[in-house]
């Protein structure tokens, strides 16, 4: 891969990241992140990681970003928060800190003697094909793989429990009154009632 292509993709990545951090509208920020993620997928292709490039596009740029955009639009959070930042000079400190960090990592990376690619490296990587990555994952890293699958299951169940509306119980409602629950009581019910009881009621 030529240096020119690297520079062009790096420009896409950095521009997308800057849009993510600086855009006033949250939807624009999310779309900037999509540009960064797709740029990174191109980088992975140039680094002989074809399976990861495909996963990056499908999982990150597809699934995760759809979830983000959905929540931004659901909460109507696209407009910026206009309240004054409570910490003084946080924008200046953040910009300065980020500049220093980027400069120092860049300097270290460019002056430090980076490992030259081994002559056999490309053969070892087998183009980062799904078969090769899957074999490593299911032989050397079975335990992390299983742990991550349990984690995903817990995350799914947890997010469903967190956002589901508790069903108001018919027995507790006054006689002859429609069973409705206001938004405010909903939150209180979520905090005070154990999950098991709510499910049974």
């Amino acid at each position, binding site marked *: 891969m030529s240096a020119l292509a690297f520079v062009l993709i790096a420009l896409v990545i950095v521009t997308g*990241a800057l849009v993510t951090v600086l855009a006033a509208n949250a939807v624009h920020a999310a779309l900037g992140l999509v540009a960064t993620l797709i740029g990174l997928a191109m980088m992975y292709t140039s680094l002989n990681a074809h399976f990861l490039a495909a996963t990056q596009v499908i999982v990150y740029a597809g699934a995760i970003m759809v979830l983000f955009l959905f929540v931004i639009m*659901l909460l109507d959070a696209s407009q910026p928060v206009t309240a004054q930042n409570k910490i003084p000079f946080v924008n200046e400190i953040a910009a300065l*800190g980020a500049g220093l960090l980027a400069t120092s990592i860049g300097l270290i990376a460019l002056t430090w003697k980076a490992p030259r690619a081994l002559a056999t490296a490309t053969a070892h990587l087998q183009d980062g094909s799904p078969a090769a990555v899957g074999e490593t994952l299911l032989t050397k890293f079975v335990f992390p793989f299983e742990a991550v699958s349990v984690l995903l299951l817990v995350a799914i169940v947890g997010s469903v429990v967190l956002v589901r509306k508790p069903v108001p119980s018919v027995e507790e409602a006054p006689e002859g009154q429609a069973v409705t629950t206001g938004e405010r009581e909903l939150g209180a019910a979520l905090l005070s009632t154990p999950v098991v009881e709510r499910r049974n009621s």
Partner: protein
Amino acid sequence: MVGTEWYVALSGILFAIGMAGVLVRRTAVLMFLSVELMLNAANLALVAFARAWGDLTAHTAVFIVMTLAAAEVAIGLAIIVTIFRKRASTNVDDLAELRG
């Protein structure tokens, strides 16, 4: 072929931008977006080193980081939605205390 050090430098720039985003943005959703930037910076460095040493271990690490990011986003956004229902705000300054 572009050397490993250029990829690491790009990863550093990306990480710094993400860090600034976490500090500057006041909305919880946008802070999550910045955290994703930082995770991706780490992923880029891992993949670059994987090519330098010809080792697929880093590819599996990146795969696991992606799964963790998906789980984190699912739980984090669920918490944000729950808090928004109760407080009608996602500004992190309003959500500083732990009390319900």
